[in-house]
């Protein structure tokens, strides 16, 4: 349980980090919070020739508001976000999702951007980025580009990032006034990776009809899955529609079978959690009427 040897680089500036990444190519791995990478090094699942530790890039430990989004720098720890009142006010889904990411002790090191780069299909934060339709700002010595959530996650533990690219920040769109969010998951023990997770963003118009609905699933396939729900707009979120959406979610997903749970059980969980989550979001007047 000890890592193999590696060269260690501690860049002091973003330019140095990018130059090192481009020089090392696929021999180099970025080290952020280390809460996913170091276990893999300890178990020798990963044996990179070099680590590029970005913990010295203090400028990346910043939370700001830009272009209608919360911009979360690559060295912002999950626990820092969790304690940031303004951030939680602007992106209320963070307050629901962050406490589910591992434990307080791992969140004291782990970063939001590291979790996105790691792209674990059962992780909460890639699902959060997907349901919010957020993006990441990616830098390399070749330039800067913005990658939307739907283009970032490619497969199990795989993103569309090139070996010389660094996520410098994540953009989480600020919640419109009437938008409401929910995050729900089933894990065997608190702090464990969820068997499946579900998240959604909804908005109702003055008549109480659905004006916006994004529904997304985690742990139910290779990447966070956004369920097609455009046909629900303009409708009342009643029991019938909720049952139909829960059913659609459970058939749209392609969850794995493993020693924790069968695919059939995970599908059942998706159906149940989606139903519960949507039911809890029904505006109170309608809930009373039905």
């Amino acid at each position, binding site marked *: *349980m*000890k*890592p*193999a*040897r*590696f*060269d*260690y*680089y*501690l*860049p*002091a500036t973003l330019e*140095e980090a990018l130059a*090192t990444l481009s020089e090392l190519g696929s021999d180099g791995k970025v080290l952020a919070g*280390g*809460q996913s990478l*170091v*276990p893999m090094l*300890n*178990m020798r699942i990963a044996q990179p*020739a070099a*680590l590029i*530790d970005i*913990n*010295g890039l203090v400028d990346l430990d910043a939370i700001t508001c830009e272009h209608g989004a919360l911009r979360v720098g690559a060295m912002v720890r999950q*626990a820092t976000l969790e304690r940031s009142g303004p951030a939680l006010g602007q992106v209320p889904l963070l307050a629901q999702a962050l*406490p589910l990411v*591992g*434990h*307080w*002790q*791992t969140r*004291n*090191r782990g970063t939001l951007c590291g979790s996105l780069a790691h792209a674990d299909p059962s992780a909460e934060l890639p699902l959060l980025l997907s349901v919010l339709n957020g993006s990441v700002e990616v830098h390399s010595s070749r330039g800067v580009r913005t990658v939307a959530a739907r283009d970032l996650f490619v497969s199990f533990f795989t993103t569309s990032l090139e070996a010389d690219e660094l996520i410098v920040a994540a953009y989480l769109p600020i919640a419109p006034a009437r938008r409401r969010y929910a995050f729900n998951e089933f894990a065997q*023990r*608190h*702090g464990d990776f969820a068997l499946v997770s579900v998240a959604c963003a909804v908005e109702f118009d003055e008549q109480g009809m659905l004006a916006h609905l994004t529904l997304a699933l985690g742990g139910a396939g290779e990447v966070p899955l956004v369920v097609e729900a455009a046909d629900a707009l303009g409708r009342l979120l009643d029991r019938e529609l909720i049952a139909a959406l829960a059913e659609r979610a459970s058939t749209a997903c392609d969850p794995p079978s493993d020693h924790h749970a069968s695919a059939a059980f995970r599908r059942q969980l998706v159906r149940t959690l989606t139903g519960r989550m949507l039911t809890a979001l029904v505006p109170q007047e309608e809930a009373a009427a039905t």
Partner: protein
Amino acid sequence: MMTHKAGEHAAIALTLDGTPVVEQAPTRMLLSDFLRQTCGKTEVHVGCEHGVCGACTVRVDGRPVRSCLMFAVQAAGHHVETVASLGTRDDLSMLQRQFHEHHALQCGFCTPGILSSAQAFLEEHPEPTEREVVEMLTGHLCRCTGYRAIIDAVLACARERKEGTS
């Protein structure tokens, strides 16, 4: 930019339990092994080495973290506190005394990590609810106590601290 080649020993200067320390370690040495083997702090326990059990938890700049998921080189320039910073056998801290009184340990393997977390937790949550204590403890495995006594000890310590300050 600071660079250390594989196998090369890096000089690491840090503050350990309040004392400045300078030691050498190869880049791949985990902070947990560095604390135990190089600095002699065998009160840092090592269970799983992948972040799950919590036995190796120490405070870095005041915040509880897994020392098995940090490299010793990453602690350079930081304040690391092990459970040894809390109290001594003859002069237990308030939290340690409450653990003693509540029988919150049996074999003691998990205890240094739990004390490190709980100390930082109480500083951040002076009046915790039982639910919050339980959530903090999800980051630690204890195979002996069944946790009840640990929860009681942490809550008792919070009450005692409050009485002491009011």
